[in-house]
């Protein structure tokens, strides 16, 4: 089993955005759009962001930070790079929005721009487009965040025949204003890494964002 190393970690909760353990942004008000507030707070310029559903928005934001120190520009093609994500609620947040466009028979206008986001793996596609990532992209769904499953997925992603050197891997969940994101950039290269990838490290980073009562 080849060792894997964490190079960057982003945690987004209902009201906090953290990068490598540093608190970058705190949500200003309960009734604000948290994804849009983060976009503005990070001073990003990517107009397509506003077309995305919430799941893609938070996945995109996490990837922006996780890719910050990757050492090459977003424009550089990354053939040996993968995006492997999991969550619990799939694209349900946006599915509910789409259902609203077809629910009323007297006002029945199914929206293609909403429908396209009714698949969870679109977020892997949005991230791949932004960073020219051309390796494997996959989206899996399970009931609850599980460091062991995440480790298994990472292990599968680095199986030698795939020729993958680096990946974005993590948990990206968004449903009705509840945001739960933990995204890692990991590689088989230990240089400049924060730590080795272990189930305990993954748990620790996840818990770091759990609100203390």
């Amino acid at each position, binding site marked *: 089993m080849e060792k894997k190393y964490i190079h960057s970690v982003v945690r987004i909760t209902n009201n906090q955005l953290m990068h490598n353990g540093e608190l970058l942004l705190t949500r200003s008000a309960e009734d604000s759009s948290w994804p849009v507030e983060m976009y503005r707070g990070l001073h990003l310029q990517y*107009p*397509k962001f*506003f*077309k995305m559903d919430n799941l893609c928005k938070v996945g995109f934001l996490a990837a922006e930070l996780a890719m910050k120190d990757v050492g090459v520009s977003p424009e550089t093609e990354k053939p040996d790079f993968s995006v492997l994500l999991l969550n619990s609620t799939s694209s349900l947040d946006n599915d509910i929005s789409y259902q609203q466009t077809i629910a009323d028979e007297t006002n029945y*206008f*199914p*929206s*293609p*721009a909403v429908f*396209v986001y009714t698949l969870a793996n679109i977020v892997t596609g949005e991230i791949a487009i932004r960073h020219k990532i051309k390796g494997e992209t996959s989206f899996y769904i399970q009931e609850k965040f599980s460091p062991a499953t995440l480790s298994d997925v990472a292990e599968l992603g680095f199986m030698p025949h795939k020729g993958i050197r680096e990946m974005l891997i993590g948990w990206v969940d968004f449903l009705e204003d509840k945001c739960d994101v933990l995204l890692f950039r990991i590689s088989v290269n230990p240089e400049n890494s924060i730590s080795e990838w272990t189930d305990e490290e993954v748990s620790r980073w996840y818990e770091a964002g759990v609100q203390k009562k």
Partner: protein
Amino acid sequence: MDSLILELKEEIIKSLNLEEMTPEDIDSDAPLFGEGLGLDSIDALELIVLMERNYGIKLANASEGKSIFQSVRVMAEYISKNRTK
């Protein structure tokens, strides 16, 4: 026509989530697709929905839209001739 053009620009910004744009940013005669607004195939489909929802105009497919979505002005002219609501 000018009020329809302004109304259309506002609707396009709203429907296509062109969050950081204002009607003044959209040139009435500039091509909607290709460069400029950076619209894509999903936007074209969404414009078809806009035509039906707001003006009662039904287009069968996206290729029919191509000649109509040349610019906001061409769109407005088509709407004023064909609208049913």
